[in-house]
């Protein structure tokens, strides 16, 4: 399951969906709103998404993770809207028979979500200024679109 939500992410209820007698490992990742970025104090963040395409691309990433690693279950939820320092912005949960695949898949999902899913982040600074952040870790968009 991959979801874009506008309400706070409830970890316990997500985690309960992963419970499985086949699983010997559960790896989760929490992405939190941090109070600084590139040397600037950050006061708050706005996340914006293109939900239709974000959910499609997110599901594609989860399917890729299932192909690459031996998993039981995999879930990712990303929040949008106005968030404060310390808020949970993204949650990934993976279960597998063994820990190796669970760790690797969790890392794969968060890295790919950050690089590919149409979600944007605007930082609001202590100075009163604000800025849309480009966290894309890959080359220019033209290179990516050649693969389409």
């Amino acid at each position: 399951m991959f979801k874009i939500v506008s309400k706070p992410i409830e970890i316990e209820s997500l985690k309960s969906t992963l419970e499985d007698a086949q699983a010997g490992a559960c790896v989760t990742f929490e992405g939190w709103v941090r109070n600084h970025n590139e040397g600037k104090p950050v006061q708050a963040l706005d996340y914006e998404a293109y939900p239709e395409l974000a959910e499609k691309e997110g599901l594609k990433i989860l399917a890729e993770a299932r192909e690459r690693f031996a998993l039981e279950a995999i879930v990712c939820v990303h929040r949008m809207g106005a968030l404060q320092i310390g808020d949970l912005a993204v949650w990934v949960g993976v279960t597998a028979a063994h820990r190796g695949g669970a760790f690797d898949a969790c890392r794969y999902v968060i890295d790919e979500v950050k690089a590919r899913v149409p979600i944007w982040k605007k930082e609001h600074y202590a100075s009163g200024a604000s800025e849309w952040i480009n966290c894309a870790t890959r080359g220019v968009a033209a290179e990516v679109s050649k693969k389409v």
Partner: protein
Amino acid sequence: MKLQIQYFALLREQRGLSDETLETTAATPTELYEELSSKYLFTLPADRVRAAVNGEFVAANAALKSGDKVVFIPPVAGG
């Protein structure tokens, strides 16, 4: 032809609205982006923006057709 455009994030702010319908002769997403960019002074160059048509990523030189819903995707920053 008539196209529907939806804007997000930086492009939404620079355009000053979230969506519009417009008449254009642009044949591809790149041509359309260049047209909009010169009109609304977008700061992102065309090669930093991906295109989606009708809810799917497409190549920058894909053919546009009347009624398409086009979205330009600025560099993403989830997580």
